[in-house]
């Protein structure tokens, strides 16, 4: 996992509540056995007017000109601004993979679905929760200012706007530590191998039918 310390980038606003993971990456792309290659089909049914397929080239497909990510001014955005309950639905980790592989490093919303939240942080895609009022303000600012950028400093847990305003955000210390240092979760857990083995022995003695 790549380290996430301080990142700054163009913001794209996705002004819809309850964006589900079926919308983020439709099911036909889940047939892949690889971890990469999902970026081109992020929000496929919203970005394109025809049906995308895993083996289909996107060049030449009819594009939906009204969809926000197809607008020139948001090209190259690395921060996605969204509404309540972003990432609800299926547990597909292909959703954060697609967002990252498209180029997003941070998603800001008033709330996220639980499984999507975990999946994203496991991959170093930083999800930031702000009060709906702050999110409203950011939507307003990005709408009014072309080239609107935000800076995210994970170390100090602050988000800064172009006008110099900054907002503090929360993150669990353990997750912060992992993302800041790009740590491999499995490696960290395996440092507790002795504890896991001891627990397992005790558990087996108490409930042998589980083994």
């Amino acid at each position, binding site marked *: 996992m790549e380290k996430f310390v301080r990142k700054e980038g163009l913001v794209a606003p996705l*002004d*819809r*509540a*309850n964006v*589900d993971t*079926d*919308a983020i990456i*439709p*099911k*036909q792309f*889940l*047939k*892949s*056995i*690889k*971890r990469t290659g999902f970026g081109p089909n992020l929000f496929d*049914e919203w970005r394109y007017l025809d*049906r995308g397929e*895993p*083996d289909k080239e996107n060049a030449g497909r009819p594009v939906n000109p009204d969809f926000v990510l197809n607008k020139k001014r948001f090209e190259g955005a690395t921060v996605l601004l969204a*509404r*309540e*309950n972003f990432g*609800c*639905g*299926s*547990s*597909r*980790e*292909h959703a*954060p993979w697609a967002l990252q592989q498209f180029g997003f490093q941070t998603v800001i919303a008033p*709330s996220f*679905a*639980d*499984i999507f939240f*975990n*999946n994203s942080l*496991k*991959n170093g895609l930083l999800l930031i929760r702000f009060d709906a009022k702050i999110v409203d303000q950011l939507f307003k600012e990005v709408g009014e200012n072309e080239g609107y950028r935000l800076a995210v400093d994970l170390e100090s847990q602050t988000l800064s706007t172009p006008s110099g305003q900054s907002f503090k955000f929360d993150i*669990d*210390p*353990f*997750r912060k530590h992992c993302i800041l240092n790009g740590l491999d*979760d*499995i490696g960290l*857990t*395996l440092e*507790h191998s002795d*504890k*896991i083995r001891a*627990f*397992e022995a005790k*558990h087996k003695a108490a*409930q*042998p*039918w*589980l*083994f």
Partner: protein
Amino acid sequence: MAKTLYDKLWDSHVVHVEADGTALLYIDRHLVHEVTSPQAYEGLKLANRPVWRVDSVVATADHNTPTRNWDKGIEGIEDKVSRLQIETLDKNIKEFGAKVYFPFLDKRQGIVHVIGPENGATLPGMTVVCGDSHTSTHGAFAALAFGIGTSEVEHVLATQCMVMQKYKNMQIRVEGKLGLGVTAKDIALAVIGKIGTAGGTGHAIEFTGSAIRDLTMEGRMTLCNLAIEAGARTGMVACDEKTIEYCKGRMFSPTGAQWDKAVAYWRTLVSDEGAHFDTEVTLDAAEIQPQVTWGTNPQMVTTVGGKVPDPAQESDKVQREWMERALKYMNLKANTPITEISIDKVFIGACTNSRIEDIRAAAQVAKGKKVAGNVKLAMVVPGSGLVKAQAEAEGLDKILTEAGFEWREPGCSMCLGMNDDLLSPGERCASTSNRNFEGRQGPGGRTHLVSPAMAAAAAIAGHFVDVRSFS
């Protein structure tokens, strides 16, 4: 101190806790399927890590498997990408091992959330994970069960643990008697309609009350299955005699002295008197009506006697725009009575409603009747090979096919359309599945979530109809 069922299940599996409360939770059962596991096994290979406890793994292929042409074997899967994913699971299980594997074409193959319980691979008191959000289903057995992503699948394979923060406790209490023709699916949709699809976010839900105790195990599985649609990663029901009776004599259930010991422990898997819940929601069972969703999210739901709501009545701008967008996608006008919505297809199946009781409910409605002429396809997809065999032994397949339903092979099928079972753009479907998201059953497809009896009644009538007054 009085503990909730969730507190008990959590406490009995904690291996280690960090200073900020992040815990390592031990996992007893890991259900594996073809879609969310290939990258996890690849990760193990790349890091040269073994599977920590092979006998915790129960695997099957379900999402991509076809529901026809099983006589052609693996060659019958025309989509090469789907086939490769199923073959990759075969290869990974062969290389890494499992307690048991029910591959494509096996007589015990089926939807992962159906085969776990029916083989006794899901038992009370267990922690159960699977790379699928509907893993909450297994909570019906007083187990702590939740859906996980692929990195977590790899993590559990390698360490037998999950890295987790404890959720808050939520109690959803349903008291009283359900009316005739009102089912667990209707309870679940009514709950989601009340608290919203984010209502349970950050919580573990326990369903309690006399209406829940009255449900069969199948009904409780339907209810817990839909906890995730209320935003909660895990939903559960306390253990009682029905739970114990269901587990008895299953393939992996304990026997003899171990059975007695297990049962004694399982009986403690209930919330203590006076245990604290952070959030409590109460519903009156008698007031719950058959439910039908009208929009593109499970919380967009109303009763069969209701109407499509009018966005103009919604004061919140974000909500109003969301409703308008949903009505446009669903091609519905505000204030249309639900019973005036006609349908093109019917799907009875999915991990929500593909168990024997669901098939019986559909057959009971369909018996002696015919699918309406405007319905292009009405299909019944049993949840597993065992469910299919049981239904056939009871003659349910005959009743359904004589009424004009197609009787298919088991799998996830048109719940998410990873195989060939899809809606065409613009088609409207009465579905017993769990999600009515845009494009969920096929690009441009329009899904209305209902119970199996309501789906069968809609198939016969050609439009939604109140199953209680349907004859």
